[in-house]
């Protein structure tokens, strides 16, 4: 699967052995993609920062259970990002004190900044994502936005390729309906947006 970033396995192993710099490189490598996914789901830059940070903090906290998919931690991060964005309760609460203590740029609170970023996000697609259930959202995120193959996404999500294909088909249909106005986003996701 050539479109997945290069092998994280060595960096991850070194990170687990206490090489902080290796973990820093993993962060540098995946930070922006995790952030973009978080922004896509939250529609808010401040929240996207928090979701991105929570995902990396969870990556470390849950390091003993993390599964690399085809040599990369990114799928785990993206799925965790989806879960954090949709269920901000447990994980975000766990790290809230730290998140609040980290410094931020003044410009981030500027609404014009979010507007500029909104211009870069396909608003219709973001709204359509809001109509999907969590598993379908995880699948669509991996396949459509991160360009994983259906087989790789299926493996990450513990489903058969056939099930992934079927789910993907239904999700596409649902998103199409949402874009032409037949469906509205689920309250759960709308509630996550602030």
């Amino acid at each position, binding site marked *: 699967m050539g479109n997945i970033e290069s092998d994280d396995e060595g960096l991850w192993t070194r*990170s687990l052995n206490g090489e902080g710099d290796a973990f820093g490189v993993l962060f540098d490598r995946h930070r922006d993609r995790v952030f973009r996914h978080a*922004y896509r789901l939250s529609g808010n830059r401040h929240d996207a920062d928090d979701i991105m940070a929570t995902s990396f903090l969870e990556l470390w906290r849950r390091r003993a259970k993390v599964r690399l998919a085809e040599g990369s931690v990114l799928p785990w991060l993206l799925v965790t990002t989806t879960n954090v964005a949709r269920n901000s309760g447990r994980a975000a609460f766990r790290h809230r004190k730290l998140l609040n203590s980290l410094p931020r740029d003044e410009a981030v609170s500027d609404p014009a900044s979010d507007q500029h970023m909104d211009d870069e996000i396909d608003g219709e697609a973001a709204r359509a994502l809001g109509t999907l259930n969590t598993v379908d959202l995880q699948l669509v995120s991996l396949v459509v936005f991160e360009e994983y193959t259906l087989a790789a996404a299926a493996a990450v999500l513990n489903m058969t390729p056939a099930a992934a294909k079927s789910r993907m088909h239904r999700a596409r249909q649902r998103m199409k309906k949402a874009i032409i106005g037949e469906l509205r986003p689920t309250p759960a996701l709308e509630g996550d947006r602030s």
Partner: protein
Amino acid sequence: MNQLHPDDTFSKALRVELVSRAQKAAPSPARGRTRLWISAGALAGAGVLAGTTVLVTASAPAPPDRSLDASRIIPSLSEPQKDTDKIPATVNPELFSYMMVDPVSRRDIDPTKTRRIGQTSANTYYAAPAGDDYMCMIGVDTKTGTSDGAGCVWLKNFESYGMKSVSPDGKESVWLMVPAGVKNNLESVKDEPGWTQQAPNFLVRDLNK
């Protein structure tokens, strides 16, 4: 969308924090005593770490039962939970959290569905379904009441091998399987002394006795 990036100040501070956490925690505390969980299918759980998991191809062909009914493996699941089936309160409750079983699909272990399946000289073993499609096995140190975590296997793959746990020193092994697989699985370990059938579908090899 390439111009989308996080707050730089926030990001730099977060990076410092992450690097610091990795340096402080070295090496990962659970690694040295992690058990080896073996199954024939997808396997997730606290006992699973990169480099320590071995997936074994089917060794005990049995009539395929693709059912997601966990009681075909643990019949007592169809009966009320007894006090002896409950995991001791001394076990970290995070054991039941979704992340512990599978961070991807968020399957929980329901503490009301644990069942005691057997014991060795050092550990008591429990099994419990997680979500609709996983079966987990949890070993609890009988003296300390603590656990290294759960290993979990897709229910639909249980026929082919079941789930085996081996202690780091190799002196303790337990093997949960479907009842139909017992005969063939016992045959497969006939050259390994010490295996006994402790329950209709639970084999134990305890070399610490």
